[in-house]
């Protein structure tokens, strides 16, 4: 499992896990899970178009990711975030269907784009992955405080002089870059699981940002390593294990934190509406 070609797989997986853990922290903090799903999925038609034209699939992915970011931002100016994301996503997917209908040799390529082909990663791919990941991490490092503050509250960001929409755009751009990079390796559909699951669990376990960030990355790495090992052993797709493990970790985190403190909080009058009791 650790022989020659698998080294690349382990490397690629680790790099992507670190990236997903870090970017995912902000995805969950900003409630942007839908965008994290929409951008990689919406990028997939770009790869299909590239297949059609015979050009680099990576280029197609990047262009369509950019279109996705632009779409969500422009539509999001007037509509609510989730509606903008949904509309941008289906618009891109509609195009994707059109391109797919025009090309005949698609099934295996489409599958690998959707679900990942991590077991066949080459050294050069790992190199470019490391390069782009570093770029991404630098961007996150530079934009860390504005990203964090605008995730909590736009007002806080504005106090720092960051226009709320600029903060959003920065975040979406970072998210787009991260997902575009990870898609060829982990596949469109599973990139976002890595970004949502570990970070979701981490933020349940600790309210402190730096701790949650580190935890998120650690959980993501563990998830990917386990998934790769299991996939190697069973021959089943990596994505299946990533999705399953991430869900298990999250559920565990939920159960663990539910048992913790149950302190009274200042909640609105009735949160469920079914606990009407007659007082004695």
């Amino acid at each position, binding site marked *: 499992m650790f022989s020659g070609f698998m080294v690349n797989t382990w490397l690629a997986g680790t790099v992507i896990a670190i990236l997903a853990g870090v970017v995912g922290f902000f995805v969950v903090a900003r409630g942007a899970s839908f965008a994290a799903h929409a951008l990689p999925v919406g990028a997939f038609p770009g790869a299909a178009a590239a297949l059609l034209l015979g050009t680099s699939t990576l280029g197609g992915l990047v262009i369509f990711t950019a279109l996705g970011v632009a779409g969500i931002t422009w539509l999001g100016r007037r509509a609510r975030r989730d509606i903008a994301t949904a509309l941008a996503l289906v618009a891109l997917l509609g195009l994707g269907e059109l391109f797919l209908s025009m090309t005949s040799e698609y099934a295996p390529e489409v599958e690998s784009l959707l679900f990942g082909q991590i077991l066949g990663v080459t050294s050069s791919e790992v190199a470019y992955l490391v390069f782009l990941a570093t770029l991404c991490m630098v961007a996150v490092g530079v934009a860390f405080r504005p990203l964090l503050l605008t995730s909590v509250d736009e007002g806080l960001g504005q106090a720092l002089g960051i226009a709320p929409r600029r903060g959003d755009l920065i975040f979406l751009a970072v998210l787009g870059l991260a997902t575009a990079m990870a898609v060829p390796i982990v596949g469109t559909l599973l990139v976002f699981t890595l970004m949502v699951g570990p970070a979701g669990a981490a933020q349940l376990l600790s309210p402190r940002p730096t701790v949650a960030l580190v935890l998120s990355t650690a959980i993501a790495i563990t998830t990917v390593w386990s998934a790769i090992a299991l996939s190697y052993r069973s021959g089943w797709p990596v994505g299946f294990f990533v999705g399953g493990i991430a869900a298990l970790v999250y559920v565990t985190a939920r159960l663990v934190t539910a048992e913790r403190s149950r302190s009274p909080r200042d909640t609105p*009058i009735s949160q469920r509406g079914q606990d009407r009791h007659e007082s004695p």
Partner: protein
Amino acid sequence: MSLNGCDPQVTLGRTAVLEVTDLTVVLGGRVVLDNVTFDLARGSVAGLIGPNGAGKTTLLKAILGFVTAQSGSLKRSAADGRAVAKVGYVPQKIDLDPDMPLRARDLVGLGLDGSRLGFPLPSRKRRTRIDEALEAVGAAQFADKRVGRLSGGEQQRVLIAHAVIRQPDLLLLDEPLANLDLRSEREVVDLVASLARDSGIASLVSTHDVNPLVGAMDKVVYLAAGKSASGRVDEVVTTEVLSALYGHQVDVLRVHGRVVVSAAPGPPPPHVDPVAKHLAEQVPR
């Protein structure tokens, strides 16, 4: 008037709509309400005053029946001897999308029959009742505006209309003045007073600042750390009474007719990291 005792002012001849006696509520190991006692007469306006965290919201929840008390009693009586007292509730604000396809009059209409299945058949009677409720709160001119696009003061009126359209005996308002500018504050207070006067709707207005209500209140219920004191403003909001309530020195000053409650310096409040607080809020309960 006594600190925790019964309020003799429940008045001869006026029926009590709400009688709270020695109500104690414990939540999560903490005593949130401690032998709270007060009465509310029909058609009167009472201010529920107290700092944040004093238990005001819990008391309102208890009156609505959403929280069970450990001990004590809470009696809601309908006027005219009806079996069940109708209670209306006005939240501080509701967060609505500006594009939400719901007009002010639609929301008020839901106050009439929002719990019934099916959709409302257009009827002149229903429309008239909605129009009347909107008139009564002064919301007629923005009746057809989307609820998500109403200003703070406008929304407050619509929420009040929603709560009073069924002519409740008791109206609970949860910090209605908190988000309003001074003029809207004045208007809401006047509205509540006139509803009490003209329609006999007893109102309990929770707020952390007694001043806007001073002219309109018939009595005040002061809550501090779960303990209550009720009576007239000049009886309750005094240095002696509040100091006893809080358990440490509190000075009450009257400046140009305004009442200023000033607590002596105590330990500084714990520093709250807004980011940590935000993330902690995402932990599901």
